[in-house]
């Protein structure tokens, strides 16, 4: 029988924003799966819980069709290197995955596009669902709280120049 317990709330506390610049976007449509290579060309971190920069070309998003799977490095203002592994979902709200028919149709559509390079629109032009859950590793020290705290974030896309603004909340 189901537990009749009140549903515990979750509280979020704004932690920091990361602005990431992009110059290249590559998509690989393979026979087994699709994935992207979208390296971080640079960026900055600003917020009450962390300030610093994105280490240029220290990694990328290597995710699949609409799931992010990003691995790269941050550097706090005090010089500490921090590893970030980011997962989540990004897709246009008017064309969510699952309404596009079978995976074969989806894969075929990607193959037909021909070019391996691709554009990512701005949130202003294409409303999107862009939510992420980052995981971090940091050395013992002032930032190691990142290694035992769950975060949830939202992304916003911009063009000219091409950058994404990530906003991260600590899950209390």
């Amino acid at each position: 029988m189901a537990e009749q317990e009140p549903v515990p709330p979750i509280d979020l506390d704004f932690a920091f924003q990361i602005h990431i610049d992009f110059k290249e976007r590559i998509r690989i449509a393979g026979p087994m799966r699709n994935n992207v290579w979208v390296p971080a060309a640079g960026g900055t971190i600003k917020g009450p819980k962390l300030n610093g920069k994105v280490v240029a070309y220290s990694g990328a998003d290597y995710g699949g069709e609409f799931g992010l799977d990003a691995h790269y490095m941050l550097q706090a203002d005090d010089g500490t290197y921090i590893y970030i592994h980011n997962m989540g979902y990004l897709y246009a709200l008017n064309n969510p995955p699952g309404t596009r028919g079978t995976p074969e149709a989806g894969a075929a559509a990607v193959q037909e596009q021909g070019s391996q390079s691709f554009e990512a629109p701005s949130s202003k032009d294409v409303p999107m669902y862009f939510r992420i859950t980052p995981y971090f590793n940091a050395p013992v020290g002032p930032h190691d709280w990142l290694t035992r705290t769950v975060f949830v974030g939202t992304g916003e896309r911009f063009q000219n120049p091409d950058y994404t603004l990530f906003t991260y909340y600590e899950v209390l």
Partner: protein
Amino acid sequence: MAEQAIPKIDLEYVFSVRIFFKERVTFMGPHGGRGFVPPSSGEIFGPRLTGTVVPYSGADYAHFQNLANGIQINTHYMLRADDGAWIYIRNIGYLHRSKDPNKPTYFRMTPYFDAPKGPHEWLSRTVILGTGERRTNPDHSLFTYYAVK
């Protein structure tokens, strides 16, 4: 550029695992195809490890774009050595049928292990390569593992 000698790699047979299956679930979704194939039982034999597969301790949660192109092996489950030690195995690799009916199925994987301190801890720091063979009646797979020297 000067010729560089290509370093040799040796493979040393370490053990075999036979796994029996009773359930196979597959479905298609927005991420592609997903499978769920749990081990109903199994045995381990060979020069470096003997024991059993812990029944229903995990599964191959394989993923695929379409089954005709093959699957990506994605397993998590538990083994038990004869001395009682618990060992976690995480296995990734590929299984696909050749377009040439005379060529065997390609079934190759790279397992990663977590073993306790003790006689099996070498599993936690050795790269191992595996090959698989599918058998029927009853439905099972035979995995042969080689340590990469």
